[in-house]
């Protein structure tokens, strides 16, 4: 289906943290900041399974998740509806994510704390640019 547009890729470089909302089987939502959402292909993203255990537990009970992203270039923000598919602990996606997690950890002073346990692969169900969430760059420049 190729749901993820090219213009969303800068939001997946780990410059600005993203957020993931999941929901337990008992109906309790959970929100967690994550350092990076990884572009796998035009219909899949990967989230790093490090230490956000409630998110990991929730998606194994209820695979739906909502991901919020923001571009450090255009400052457009996006909502992704996603569904957990599988967890990978080896292979090219895992290896790439592992290197990037290490790099982010070094940059933000969290080396030894950020540690990739698995690459959780999610299928993208929908992509929405949140045009009503952001004030235009022009208005900010005008001092609003």
């Amino acid at each position: 289906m190729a749901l993820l547009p090219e213009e969303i890729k800068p939001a997946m470089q780990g410059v600005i943290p993203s957020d993931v909302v999941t929901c337990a089987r008992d109906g309790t939502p959970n929100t967690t900041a994550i350092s990076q959402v990884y572009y796998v292909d035009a219909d899949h993203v990967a989230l790093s399974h490090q230490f956000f255990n409630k998110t990991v537990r929730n998606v194994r009970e209820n695979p739906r998740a909502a991901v919020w992203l923001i571009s450090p270039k255009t400052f457009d923000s996006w909502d992704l509806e996603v569904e957990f598919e599988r967890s990978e602990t080896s292979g090219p996606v895992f290896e790439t994510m592992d290197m990037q997690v290490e790099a982010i950890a070094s940059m933000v002073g969290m080396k030894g704390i950020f540690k990739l346990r698995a690459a959780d692969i999610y299928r993208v169900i929908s992509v929405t640019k949140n045009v009503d969430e952001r004030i235009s760059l022009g208005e900010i420049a005008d001092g609003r």
Partner: protein
Amino acid sequence: MISDQLVEFLHGPSFLHLGTRDADLRPAHTAAVGAVAHDDRRTVTVFVPAARAGRALEHLRQNGRVALGAGQMSHEAYQFKGTFLSSRPTDEADIARQEAFRLRFLDSLRQGYPEEIARPLSLGFAYRPGVAITFRVEEIFRQTPGPGAGEKLA
């Protein structure tokens, strides 16, 4: 229930993320700009832009379940979970609070980002007209990355 330290933390400046879910347990995210912990230390009001509030309010009126994540540039982070109580349009006092929040948020982001990111990122969140959403806090969790992540604090 909400300690002095957590009141101060919640008042920010923090990234604020509101989590809700629909009747089919499909979760949703709403970005928030500013929050207030009330003197009873059990209720919190969080501000979301009116244009983005519809879905969250629909969820909250259906089932009441809410999670509010707050995280700062230091990576210190907490999550407040509870039950929806009420909503109303933001008033002048709320907007003044949000405008002060935005400026402090900009200052905090300057500690980790160059100006060309810090300024549009912090000031670019829509906030008015807004909706004030109040909920009763029932659980608080530490989310700071590290060994204590996930610890239930209250």
